[in-house]
């Protein structure tokens, strides 16, 4: 078990390093000059004197060869330093650390909602054998996938904040302001969960152990909740990593729509200001979240399905 854990951690470190390197290559090798962006963003493009520009260039190692720049950046990264945000002049890690709890709260509530909604749709349609209600339920996920979250969010705002006045429209104050963004964020994820779980439930109903349970006289709800659901939730676990990634990406749009503070908003602002260190920090953060979530899901596998041994599940 310890060996397995060590290998998982090594894999995680590799993904983090690779995400760092990939974002470094994309962001630094493509034709753009960070110093120019920096000067343009402060509006002092023309009046900077050449000596100061040269000093700035030397400070940021812009003219050094690629491997020198990369070596310096990697050295800092290992020490947990992701550089300084260009327009805000604060460490990237500090800015992300400040915004992350807000997004975490939003994503956590959205995840719970998505699980309840998606799982509910899948279970109900798995329980019904046919009929109009089942057809309606099955047509819901493809519909939800097709609704862009910026539009869903604006629609919810229009109806529930402006017409009915149930929830505050903007900002980060209290639980009330969290509800509409969380619902918006949850909808596409719920659709994915519903689709995967519905399919997996349908396949599981054909397994021999369902026949055995039926032969023993178990009722349909009992079979669904006790036997089938446990088995069918496995594919759900494999998409959890993707789901969390979608929630983070969705937060970019949702936090902008609802003018909330958070990591997603940081992404939007960083892109608008061409804040390259910030973008890189956020890419690394999303890779970190991916690693943590997937490692967690893999460790949970054996608890749900005892047939899966951690030592055999290494090569994912």
């Amino acid at each position: 078990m310890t060996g397995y854990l060590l290998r998982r951690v090594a894999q995680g470190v590799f993904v983090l390093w690779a995400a760092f390197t990939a974002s470094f290559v994309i962001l630094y090798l493509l034709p753009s000059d960070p110093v120019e962006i920096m000067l343009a963003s402060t509006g002092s493009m023309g009046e900077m004197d050449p000596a100061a520009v040269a000093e700035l260039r030397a400070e940021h190692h812009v003219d050094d060869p690629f491997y020198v720049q990369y070596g310096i950046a990697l050295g800092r990264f290992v020490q947990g330093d992701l550089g300084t945000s260009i327009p805000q002049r604060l460490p990237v890690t500090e800015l992300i650390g400040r915004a992350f709890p807000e997004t975490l709260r939003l994503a956590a509530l959205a995840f719970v909602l998505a699980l309840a909604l998606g799982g509910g749709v899948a279970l109900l349609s798995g329980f019904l054998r046919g009929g109009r209600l089942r057809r309606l339920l099955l047509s819901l996920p493809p519909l939800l996938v097709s609704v862009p979250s910026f539009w869903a969010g604006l629609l919810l705002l229009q109806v529930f904040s402006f017409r009915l006045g149930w929830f505050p429209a903007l900002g980060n104050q209290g639980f009330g302001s969290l509800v509409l963004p969380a619902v918006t964020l949850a909808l596409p994820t719920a659709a994915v969960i519903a689709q995967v779980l519905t399919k997996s439930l349908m396949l599981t109903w054909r397994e021999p152990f369902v026949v055995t349970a039926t032969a023993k006289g178990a009722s349909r709800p009992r079979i669904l909740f006790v036997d089938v659901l446990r088995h069918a939730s496995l594919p759900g676990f494999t998409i959890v990593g993707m789901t969390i990634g979608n929630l983070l990406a969705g937060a970019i749009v949702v936090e902008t729509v609802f003018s909330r503070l958070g990591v997603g908003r940081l992404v939007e602002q960083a892109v608008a200001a061409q804040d390259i260190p910030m973008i890189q920090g956020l890419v690394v953060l999303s890779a970190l979240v991916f690693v943590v979530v997937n490692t967690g899901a893999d460790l949970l596998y054996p608890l749900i399905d005892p047939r899966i041994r951690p030592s055999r599940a290494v090569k994912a």
Partner: protein
Amino acid sequence: MSVPVVKAPDAVRPARPRRLRYGVRWTLRRPGLVLSVLFLVWVLLWAAVPGLFATHDPLVGVPADKLLPPGPGHWFGTDHLGRDLFSRTVHGASLSLGATALAVFVGFVAGSVLGLFSGFVGGWSDEVVMRCVDVMMSIPGLLLSLAVVTVLGFGTLNVAVAVGIAAVAGFARVMRADVLRTCTEVFVEAAESLGVSRRRTLVRHVLPHSIGSVLVLAALEFGTAILAVSSLSFLGFGAAPPTPEWGSLVSEGRNYLVSAWWLTTLPGLVIVLTMLATNRVARALDAGRGEDR
């Protein structure tokens, strides 16, 4: 399904019309699919010849007619400058759909070439390519696109390329899997034993048998790309303001949520319907392919 059917030689002749008739009937039995196709043709015509459908000039507004609700004169109402929203939506189709098509094309070509190369050559280059693909998959697509847009700069073209780059990994993975499967087929072995060159084997034998899944993926990717392109345009990284684009039309209406619901709702509805139609057609292609085998 996959049982090979041996037909008598004379039975081969009428197969074509029968297959066509079967296909037509198969389609007509699905009204949702027919509606989706019709809607897509309609929207594509908007993109191709917007002048034919637009009722007003998309860029010039009549200040006296500002913020009019939808009605017979202005089907989608007017915006804060008195511009006709329906005409703007029609004119936005070419940029939004064009960017979507370009994004899918970039992802399809780059991903397929990468996957084809990776699967066919194998060895350590395959290993390197696939590890890169894994890393790209670990970053959410929208974030990856945004990172690329940061470097390339804003604008519809750059948004399209960025969305395409985010899709490369998925295409590469599917293509590689199919290439690996095809490479174990007997006819590939036969070609090799007959002394056919590697390149010719790749182009004539491996590629045609591996391209199917990627083509279906391309169809499925259209929906995702519409969403990504319009999201980036909504965030304000697409075309500059006066030019209409579906995502930016919705975002322009944000300031009038209380007084003019139509400004966000109607262009958004067009996006939703387009995505629904695209996904429906893609699923039909996917299912048709499954029945074919």
